[in-house]
Structure formats: C-alpha cells, structure tokens
C-alpha cells in the first residue's frame, strides 16, 4: 500500500471577517482510509470539508492532494490563490456529495452523471455513458437512468449525486452531511450505498451526524469542536471510549 497520504491538511485556518471558524486543523488521509468528521453545529466541520476543494477559500494553511498543492499557485517565491478556472482540474480529482444533492434539473439522471466525464475528462459520448452506467449500477439506480431529478425521491437523488461523484473516478470522496436533508426513512438507502463503496477501498472524508454509521464504516473519527480537532482516533475507540470532556458531552447528547 502506497504510503504517501492522499490528502494532507496543515495549519488550516478560516475566518469570516472577525469570526474565526477554523483555528488550525491538521490531519492526513491515507489511501483507502475512511475518516468521519463529527461535531456540534458551528464546530466548522462542513467548512473544513469545503476548504479542501476550495469551495471555501482558506485564510491560512496548506492542502495537498496526492502531494500537489491545492488552490495555491507559487510563482517565484510568492503565493497566490488560484482562480476558479485553475482550480477546476484539481476539483475534478475530488468527488463531492452535497447535503442538498444539487442535481442539475435540466439534465436526466444519466446526463447528470456523464456530463463531467465528457466535458472535463474528455471522454467520448460512449465512454462517458458506459462510465455513467457503471456508477449508477453501484448506487442501484440503473433503472432510473432516463428519469429527471424532479421525479426522484430525496434518497434517490442523493444516490445519483453519489454516482455523479463516482464518475469522476476521484482520488478522494468528500461527503458533506449526505443524509441530513433526507426524511428518516430514506436515510438508510444512502448510508448502505456509502457503506458498500467504503468496502471497495475508496478513500473517503465524511462529515456526518450519523454517529453509529461513522462508528461502523470509518477507520478513524475526528471530533471537531470550536474550530479545532478536539480529539481523534480509531472509530470504535473514540466513540465507545471518548477521552475528552467535550467529546463525551457531545456523544452523550447525540445518543439521546
């Protein structure tokens, strides 16, 4: 197994004006690792995730994907944030799944999944559609390939969102609270899909409220509180035996 981390985050700070949301986050994700980010609202977990693919611009810090510096151009000693245009190829290597699904309503399910493969990665129509079919099969949505997003339930839409990310053949998958916007009875179909993908050995960073899911699926869990990693460790250990008070309080509240 390759020992270079797929993702390395160093000294990540993010402020919105006066408000400092991330106060120095550092961690690494090795190939095939699944890491869950948990924590109370406002702890900065979504912000942290969104900084990785630069949907939010970090105030300070270094993010490296497979060794390459993300989002920052170094030119003759000076650093500059990349424009959206320059970021595009880097983002293409990371697959993001959104809380609000964000499927494109004017495209069918198949087109939603295939379009990036065609336009970003340059595959031909046949290749892209084949890729889309594989991705849809993995999320058990093959029979809806020609449906429109508005015809699907929330759980179905989110699975299509996952397929869309898979079709990027990404080095890293980023899940931003993928089930928080779903009705309770639809949550499991999405969690099951994520679990199956995890078992395939994909590298994943997962922001979630579903603690028992994190415990079962993640290798490591990081507990965020007030913008720093309060505690981290192997999933079962941290959740069954939290050491820090903040962690203990949080887990106690969530399990009620």
């Amino acid at each position, binding site marked *: 197994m390759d020992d270079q981390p797929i993702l390395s985050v160093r000294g990540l700070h993010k402020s919105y004006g006066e408000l400092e949301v991330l106060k120095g986050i550092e961690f690494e994700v090795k190939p095939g690792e699944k890491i869950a980010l948990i924590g109370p609202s406002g702890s900065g977990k979504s912000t942290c995730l969104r900084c990785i*693919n630069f*949907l939010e611009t970090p105030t300070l810090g270094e993010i490296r994907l497979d060794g390459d510096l993300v989002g920052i151009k170094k030119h003759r000693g000076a650093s500059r944030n990349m424009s*959206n*245009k320059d*970021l*595009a*190829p*880097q*983002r*293409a*290597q*990371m*697959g*993001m799944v*959104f809380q*609000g*699904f*964000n*499927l*494109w*309503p*004017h495209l069918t399910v198949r087109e939603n999944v295939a*379009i*990036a493969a065609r*336009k*970003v*990665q340059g595959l031909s129509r046949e290749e892209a559609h084949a890729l889309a079919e594989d991705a849809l099969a993995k999320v058990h949505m093959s029979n809806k390939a020609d449906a429109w*997003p*508005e015809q699907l339930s929330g759980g179905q*839409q989110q699975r299509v*969102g996952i397929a*869309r*990310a898979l079709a*990027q053949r990404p080095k890293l998958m980023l899940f931003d609270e993928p089930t928080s916007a779903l009705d309770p009875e639809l949550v499991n179909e999405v969690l099951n899909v994520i679990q199956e993908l995890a078992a395939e050995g994909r590298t994943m960073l997962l922001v979630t409220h579903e603690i028992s899911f994190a415990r079962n699926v993640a290798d490591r869990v990081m507990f965020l509180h007030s913008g720093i990693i309060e505690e981290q460790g192997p999933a079962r250990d941290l959740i069954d035996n939290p050491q820090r008070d903040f962690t203990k309080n949080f887990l106690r509240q969530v399990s009620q």
Partner: protein
Amino acid sequence: MLDFLSVFFQYADQWGPRLARAAVVSAQISFMGFLVATVLGLALALMRMTKSRTFQAIARAYILVFRGVPVLAVLLLLYFGLPGIGILFSPIEAAVIGLGLAYAAQMAEVFRGGFQAILAGQWESAAAVGFTPWQSLRLIILPQVVRIIMAPVIVTFVTLLKDSSLAALITVNELLLEGRALASEYFLPLHIYIWVGAMYFAIAFPLSMMAKHLANRANSRVRQ
C-alpha cells in the same frame, strides 16, 4: 353601426396590403432591436456578476440611465440629435439601435432575475465536478436560466414590439406611420387606427398568452 363596419370592407383591398407591408417592417425592427437588446443585456447581467468593481459600476450605471430615459428620447437623440455632431443613422438603423440600447437594460434585469433564481448549490456542484467557470455557465447555469426567463423574455419582446411604433416618429415606414399616411389620404383616422391597432393586437396577443401559459407552468413545477 353597420355603416361604421362597412367602411372596413370597402377599403380592405386598399389598406390591407399597405398596412401588411408596413407591419413586416415593424416586425423586422422589433426582432433586430430585440436581438441587440438580448446580447447587450446578457453582457450587462454578466458584468454585474463579475468580481470587478469597474464592470459592476458600468453595468449599473447603464441600467440606471436607461431606466430613466424614455425610448422616444433615445430614438430622437440618435436620429435627429447625433447628426449635429456628425453621426448619421438611417431611420431603421436609429430605430434598431435605439430599441436595442433601451431594452438592453430591461433584458439585463430579466437575466439577473433568472440567475438569482438559480440556487447557489448549482454553481457549487458544477465547480465540484471540475467544470471551469465558463463550462459551469454554459452547461449548467444558462440552460436553467433560459427555462426560467422564457416568460419574462416574451413579455419584454411584446413591450418592445409596442414601442416599435415610436419608430414612426423618426420616419421609419412601419405600421403606425403607414396608418398616419393612410389617415391623411382617406380622412378616416378612426377606422384606420382601429385597423392598425387590430394588427398589433394580432401579433402581440398570442405572444402574451404564450407567456402567461409558460409562467403558469413554471410556477406549478416548483419542487425540491
């Protein structure tokens, strides 16, 4: 009453062809003016969305100016005013440019409304799969904007079509001017202008109904 109506039939073959030809001119300047307005309006809307303060200021100033100046004033300025500093436009050129410039401001607002209706998540998911900003705009955002603005666009076109009658006042041989000419030849202004009105109605009404239909459909499809 019957006498009143019989006049229409009496002169139908003399008025009909002339007014029809003039109506074609009205339609032509309307389409061309609308084309100018759409292209310029989209540019203005995009300028307002960039991060550049200068572009934003220029776009907003443009829209503010044309919100306050009547279309007729623009047409008269272009056709009668500019020759004073050496710029000469033909009547049709002045009409198309004038309508285009004036309605670009309105189209910019229509486009802006369309863009604002697109949730931020659409931009984010497009960026997240690795589309460049230009690709995001072209493949994901604009197709949705077009759907949303169909109804207001048609309404704007109908309004522009009505204002094309102002071109009569800068001597363009369109429907209303032809009506005026006929009125001075036949001394039957009431009948002639009613006919003119009916012709505008025949073009504008179906478009207005189509716009209403589209607007109703868009409102009932709001889901997710």
